[in-house]
């Protein structure tokens, strides 16, 4: 394989010129999905972890069930199930909604576990000090426990957020026009692998800054502990 063949396969200028707008459209959608999933999954997961710290046995049973269910299931399975199954039951969700909903729930499950691990790592003395000063449960959680627990949970939170938003590529299977879908459509129209190269670069453009940002946040938020 000559160097020329390699370049015309993966970096064909004509193909780049023709298909980059499609890839940009895909990027916009992937970025939108990523933000929507991180916000919804993050908030839901955090709320569940806070609720779990109240230690109501009946509610915690369902929280654990929820977290284990979504952590155990490969995300592609519920994506296919919801997209192809629900219409038969009379409920039609758009491909975008199915992808967003599924990945938000998966992220929420992991966020709940990470935050709960963080909350549990805080010594009971912190709860006691805050509660004995007259702070209520929610105040103690907000001002004393979560600021410490979230710092502990931060590495696993950012890792999960990145890992799960990357799974938006699964949208290809149900026709969500995100990066991979756009790139592989362009690849089948043109017979050239160059659009896939563009797709790869588009993923890097979105997720590399996220990875760098999370590394920065982790070092920034690490505070001195006694």
């Amino acid at each position: 394989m000559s160097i020329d063949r390699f370049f015309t396969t993966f970096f064909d200028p004509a193909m780049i010129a023709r298909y980059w707008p499609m890839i940009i459209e895909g990027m916009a959608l992937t970025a939108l999905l990523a933000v929507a999933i991180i916000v919804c999954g993050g908030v839901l997961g955090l709320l569940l972890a806070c609720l779990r710290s109240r230690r109501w046995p009946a509610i915690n049973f369902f929280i654990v069930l929820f977290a284990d269910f979504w952590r155990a299931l490969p995300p592609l399975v519920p994506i296919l199930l919801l997209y192809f199954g629900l219409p038969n039951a009379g409920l039609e969700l758009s491909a975008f909604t199915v992808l967003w909903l599924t990945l938000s729930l998966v992220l929420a499950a992991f966020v709940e576990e990470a935050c709960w691990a963080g909350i549990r790592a805080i010594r009971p003395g912190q709860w006691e000090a805050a509660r004995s000063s007259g702070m209520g449960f929610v105040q103690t959680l907000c001002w004393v426990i979560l600021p410490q627990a979230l710092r502990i949970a931060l590495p696993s939170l950012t890792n999960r957020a990145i890992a799960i938003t990357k799974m938006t590529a699964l949208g290809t299977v149900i026709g969500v026009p995100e990066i991979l879908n756009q790139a592989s459509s362009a690849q089948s129209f043109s017979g050239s692998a160059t659009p896939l190269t563009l797709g790869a670069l588009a993923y890097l453009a979105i997720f590399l800054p996220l990875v760098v940002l999370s590394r920065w946040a982790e070092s920034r938020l690490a505070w001195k502990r006694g």
Partner: protein
Amino acid sequence: MSAANPAQRAAASPQAPYPILELIKLHKRFGDHVVLEAVDLRIEPGELVCVIGPSGSGKSTMLRLCNQLERACGGQVIFDGQDLTSSLVSIDRVRRQIGMVFQQFNLYPHLRALGNVTLALKRVAGLPRREAQAVALDALERVGMREHANAWPSTLSGGQQQRVAIARAIAMSPKIVLFDEPTSALDPTLVGSVLAVMRRLREEGMTMLVVTHEMQFARAVADRVVFMADGKVIEQGPPEQLFTSPRDPRTAAFISGESN
């Protein structure tokens, strides 16, 4: 209806002196293990009461029942005329008037010394930021920690951390401060600075209930010493009497053991 009704007495004559804190027939078990058995104790305003006794005698549990960090299995905790064991009492409102200082300090590691003191002032007492800071700096001054207001807890020595914790408790102007073995986690060289702060608080008229192993402190500073063993108050009295002529042989044995 006899002495068990300070609430009624208080309602009848709010100015009349009555104990700020009274424990009545307090019982506590963890599972089958009886920790406290019919404990009675009265703390008058302005008193410094030291509780001594062997480990496992229930002293710390008794202290934690005073602000309901533990729930009693029976009996009453009357604070300022209110029965804290009643489900009608808003415990958060009561706790802001009861300071607590812990063996392990329990400072908030994500906040500086000043932030540790201002947190409850802002969130519980509802003071605006500047006012909370002024009150907090004053409290830090009283424990000799004002110049460390911007320090992170982890950069402070144990004795300094405990003094910040005391500032955190007194900044809320509590009616009583509970001390749970405040010097037991400290290097011997640092104990003195914390005890000196407690002595000063006592001179300022702060009501204090102190669970401690510091016999010399109890003897020199306390108004009254309570000796507990096996979940019961064995005897109590002025320190000189209790230390020099204890009535109960268990008290005598404990005191001679501790002073060796």
